[in-house]
């Protein structure tokens, strides 16, 4: 009953939360009973990270309406800073969850700071120009991290750029230039990933439904009209952009903490585009769609392994067919019709049931 009295947006948001929770419960049951392949089990954390990447980019692309091609750059900034913190902390404490949460917070903050630095000059641009600059930003982050050396020993952190000139007294090298992060404490867990998705969804849904969210969408729909009613364009743009960056940073930490090694070139232009594909396929501004698209497109290449040599070819064809099918009005109408019929059946049944009860 309550579901019906809610307004349309709230209901849709609740369905999204419920979907994520149900998926989590199902996977937990599968894990508990051991009915899960090691392939899927190994992909759980990356899927969570990609979902967070997709919904955070959707905030920039779908809600704010600006095309960003450097989202993986924020992921990288978060991953590398967060894992350095995690490595330092895990020497002093054995509480993995605490270490992971703290390092995710640090990763998020660092990515947010980078977001501000990039955003302040860049968000005065729009359209193609913004896309070009964010693309360059992603490459710059990759270039910096590729030349970064960070070591940890008894006397603290050592950092050097371009040439490895670390004056180490024992200890270990955390970021080793092009070799990236090695010996990462593997502390990521599916549960933390699930909680991160829920938190990000909560933040995004509440932002979109707030005064700020309406301002952000207003300047997406018509910049001049928004300006004329006194909305501060730069501030609101920056707000959405930085929140999106912070989430990407946290996703980066989660992703990196799942593997024993991560290199800077992992977070390149291709990864940014991959995440953009999740967003476009799921629908601009449609968080539920992003979640589904991110999950399906992460699992798909692995499921297609049975096609061996033709794997990536089949993947591309499936992608094209999906794009065409989801945009096909005939198919959409057909699906809607079918859905309303099914819903109608249920309604009739319950009405009958109620009558019978009376």
């Amino acid at each position, binding site marked *: 009953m309550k579901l019906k009295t809610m307004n349309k947006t709230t209901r849709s948001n609740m369905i999204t939360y419920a979907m994520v929770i149900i998926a989590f419960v199902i996977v937990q049951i599968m894990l508990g009973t051991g009915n899960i392949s090691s392939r899927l089990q*190994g992909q759980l954390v990356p899927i969570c990270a990609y979902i967070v990447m997709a919904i955070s980019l959707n905030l920039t692309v779908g809600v704010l309406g600006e095309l960003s091609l450097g989202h993986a750059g924020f992921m990288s900034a978060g991953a590398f800073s967060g894992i350095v913190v995690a490595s330092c902390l895990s020497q002093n404490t054995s509480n993995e969850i605490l270490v992971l949460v703290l390092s995710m917070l640090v990763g998020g903050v660092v990515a947010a700071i980078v977001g501000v630095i990039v955003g302040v000059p860049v968000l005065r641009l729009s359209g193609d120009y913004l896309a070009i600059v964010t693309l360059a930003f992603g490459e710059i982050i990759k270039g910096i991290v590729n030349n970064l050396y960070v070591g940890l020993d008894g006397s603290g952190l050592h950092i050097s750029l371009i040439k490895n000139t670390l004056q180490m007294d024992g200890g270990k090298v955390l970021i080793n230039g092009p070799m990236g992060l*090695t010996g990462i404490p593997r502390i990521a867990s599916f549960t933390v990933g699930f909680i991160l998705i829920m938190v990000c969804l909560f933040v995004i849904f509440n932002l979109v439904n707030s005064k700020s969210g309406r301002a952000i969408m207003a300047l997406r729909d018509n910049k001049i009209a928004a300006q004329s009613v006194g909305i501060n364009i730069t501030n609101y743009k920056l707000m959405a952009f930085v929140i999106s960056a912070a989430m990407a940073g946290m996703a980066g930490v989660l992703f990196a903490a799942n593997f024993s090694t991560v290199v800077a070139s992992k977070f390149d232009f291709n990864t940014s585009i991959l995440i953009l594909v999740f967003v476009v396929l799921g629908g601009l501004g449609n968080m539920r769609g992003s979640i589904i698209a991110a999950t399906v497109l992460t699992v798909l290449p*692995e499921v297609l392994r049975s096609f061996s040599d033709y794997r990536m070819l089949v993947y591309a*064809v499936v992608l094209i067919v999906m794009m065409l099918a989801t945009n096909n009005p005939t198919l959409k109408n057909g699906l809607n019709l079918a859905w309303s019929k099914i819903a109608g059946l249920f309604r009739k049944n319950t009405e009958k049931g109620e009558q019978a009860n009376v």
Partner: protein
Amino acid sequence: MKMKKKIALGLVLAMGLTMFAGCGGNSGDKNAAADNAGGDTAAAIKVGGTGPLTGGDSIYDLAEHHGAEIAEEEINAMGGVQFELKMEDDAHDAEKAVNAYNTLKDWGMQLSLGSVTSTPGTATSDENYRDSIFALTPSASATTVTEGKDNVFQMCFADPNQGSASAQYISDQQLGSKIAVIYKNDDVYSSGIYETFMSKAGELGLDVVSTTTFTTDSQNDFSVQLNDAKNAGADLLFLPMYYDAASLILNQADAMGYAPKFFGVDGMDGILTLEGFDTSLAEGVMLLTPFSADADDERTQSFVAKYQERYGEVPNQFAADAYDCIYALYQACTNANATADMTAEELNELMKEQFTTMTFDGLTGTGATWNENGQITKEPKGMVIQNGVYVGM
């Protein structure tokens, strides 16, 4: 308009269907073949490995896949311990390598060939260690692959060894008085060799006159690096990199009329089989590799003949490494009386014991031994390219 759309959709579907049908048929055949093989070798130990079957580095994985297949067939024909081999694609990416590894684990992998390249190798070797599945990698040469993991072993030289061995070789043979180095500073393999080469060169008093770098994004134009080396008067150019970039360097040096001696490492192997590369440019290039296809011992010759017959090209060092890996596993399994019904953990313990104690004779070196860290000790051979083939120096 609507008609057009429908036709378009129909065409796409038809295309998709035919492709699926084609693939289905193909994979069906493969499965059938695998089943037959399974019938003959009822109790085979399952060996799995990941490598870049697709992407820029696929030449390594294809070579290793072929080399391992030949070894597998020979061993299965001999009777005794039987192997079943499976390779999965990792596209030279750590994340995909872990996925590929897990796929192999679902398949029931008992022994592992690790990964072909270093970055994926670092990620999968950690999984090997966690799951107690023994790994012997043919070519993942970074030290991080074996570091801290007692059940991961390498068939190739570790990167630092290659760097210092190259410096030692250049110094011993007095190949050049002024040396220039070009390396790829966003690549684990290249920068790893560079660092140890430089420290060894410093010890030996080699005169390095020019050091320049490039990255994945800038590996199309080497005029700056080559001019720098030329102006410094270098007569030996050390190229610790993979063959794809090296082929461009050879091309561009030739175009600008600069002809120093070129010295490469095992990543240079494969340059002769690169499509569209004029092999006459590689004439006189020296490289350090443990394998030479023109060696006159019987095993190498029979391997090269078989490889040429089946795949139509001369096998490179990577094919030989993978071939050796399968044979080393065979030797260890035979010595330890390992059987296919043992679990991966049981095999893991047996293999660890065998590999730290046994001595192995293979195509890529005789009397090879492994230390506790999983690194191999064997003699590198200097090779020079003459008339389009490798000749021992």
